[in-house]
């Protein structure tokens, strides 16, 4: 990779941050374009006509959408840099499995558990807790999901590592408590402290203030 790389992004969006994290891990320079999701740019709509979402990576004019697809693309086009996916096929399949699990299952459950109210929320909290427990158990004695260093699953779990804490603070819902999730709690501390991640997180107070505003309009 080299040449021209543009990332269409939204500062507060965890999916967008995944892409930026991967770019920084690989040391690839890129141009950042902030999108206003209430008023999407013609370029974004041109580059992602199917889903009309961020993030979108545009490499020499060629767009790629869907954050996990973009992560794999970044990894494959810069194989000599920091490895995002493992090299072994079985470990790659495992990394893909947990990343998909986070997106397909954890995210919707966390959203429902934290933002819904009443009975629906209680059930959702139960479900989200069960799902997070799978991640807790998957960590085992590892420092990161990727082992000694962060990998694709850690990047995908940025929602759990950083954003979940802000959502919990704003909504008052407690999901990832230390007594229930000691490993995940430790992991999230390691995660936000690790070099490239900490440089690339949005300001916590900024996210909290954004979410508080969002909560009022729900």
């Amino acid at each position, binding site marked *: 990779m080299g040449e021209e790389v543009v990332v269409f992004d939204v500062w507060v969006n965890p999916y967008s941050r995944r892409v930026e994290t991967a770019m920084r891990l690989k040391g690839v320079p890129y141009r950042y374009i902030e999108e206003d999701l209430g008023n999407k740019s013609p370029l974004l709509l041109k580059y992602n006509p*199917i889903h009309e979402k961020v993030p979108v990576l545009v*490499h020499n004019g*060629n767009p*790629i*959408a*869907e954050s996990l*697809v*973009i992560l*794999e*693309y970044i990894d*494959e*086009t810069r194989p000599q840099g920091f490895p995002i996916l493992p090299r072994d*096929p*079985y470990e*790659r*399949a495992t990394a*893909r*499995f947990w990343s*998909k*699990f986070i997106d397909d299952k954890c995210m919707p459950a966390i959203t429902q558990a934290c933002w819904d109210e009443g009975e629906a929320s209680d059930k959702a909290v139960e479900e989200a807790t069960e799902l997070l427990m*799978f991640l807790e158990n998957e960590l085992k004695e590892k420092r990161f999901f990727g082992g000694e260093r962060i990998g694709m699953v850690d990047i995908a779990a940025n929602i759990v590592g950083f954003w979940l804490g802000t959502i919990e603070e704003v909504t008052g819902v407690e999901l990832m408590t230390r007594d229930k999730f000691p490993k995940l709690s430790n992991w999230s501390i390691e995660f936000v402290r690790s070099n490239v991640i900490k440089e690339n997180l949005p300001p916590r107070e900024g996210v909290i203030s954004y979410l508080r505003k969002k909560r009022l309009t729900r």
Partner: protein
Amino acid sequence: MAEEVVLLDFWVSMFGMRVRVALAEKGIKYEYREEDLRNKSDLLLQMNPVHKKIPVLIHNGKPICESLIIVQYIDEVWNDKSPLLPSDPYKRAQARFWADFVDKKVYESGRKLWTTKGEEHGAAKKEFLEILKTLEEELGEKPYFGGETFGFVDVAFVTFYSWFNAFETFGEFSMEAEHPKIIAWAKRCMQKESVAKTLPDQQKVYEFVLGMRKRFLGE
């Protein structure tokens, strides 16, 4: 080292079929085990504790779950023949994007065709046909989604062909009339032994879906 490959599956699952097509494309010998989804085996629950779903591929005792992840695994391990993903990274990304699109859209939308009635059903039919239109546009004039050769997106979508009769009947439309290019593409894929030998007869699938619909709608 002797390879031991086991597939936990259910005959009518279009997701399981993807794995069977990939295994056939690569000429891999494996043991097929049919699961009763109303009485899941201990092995399935042990091998896929997170989702408790088929398909699960067990390679030398180690499980791999989620059909598209399994297909990529098969492509990476048995990389000596019939590549399913392209070698160019940009084309690979496009293949992953479109396979993900099929995953996110076709099943759920198709399911609504036989689980809904009235206004909801009308909306479901419109949505399903829109999705097929998008896929037809992506296919364009290419013989396969993969271009000149059968590939990852073809594997991801062609297994739904066995469900077309069911979709058409419950959706009240003709696939041939609405999306002739999709039918032409599917028939082209069916010329491949791996696809023809894997996909069950559409009539059998229709009867299965009819049974499910009766139970679902309480008829």
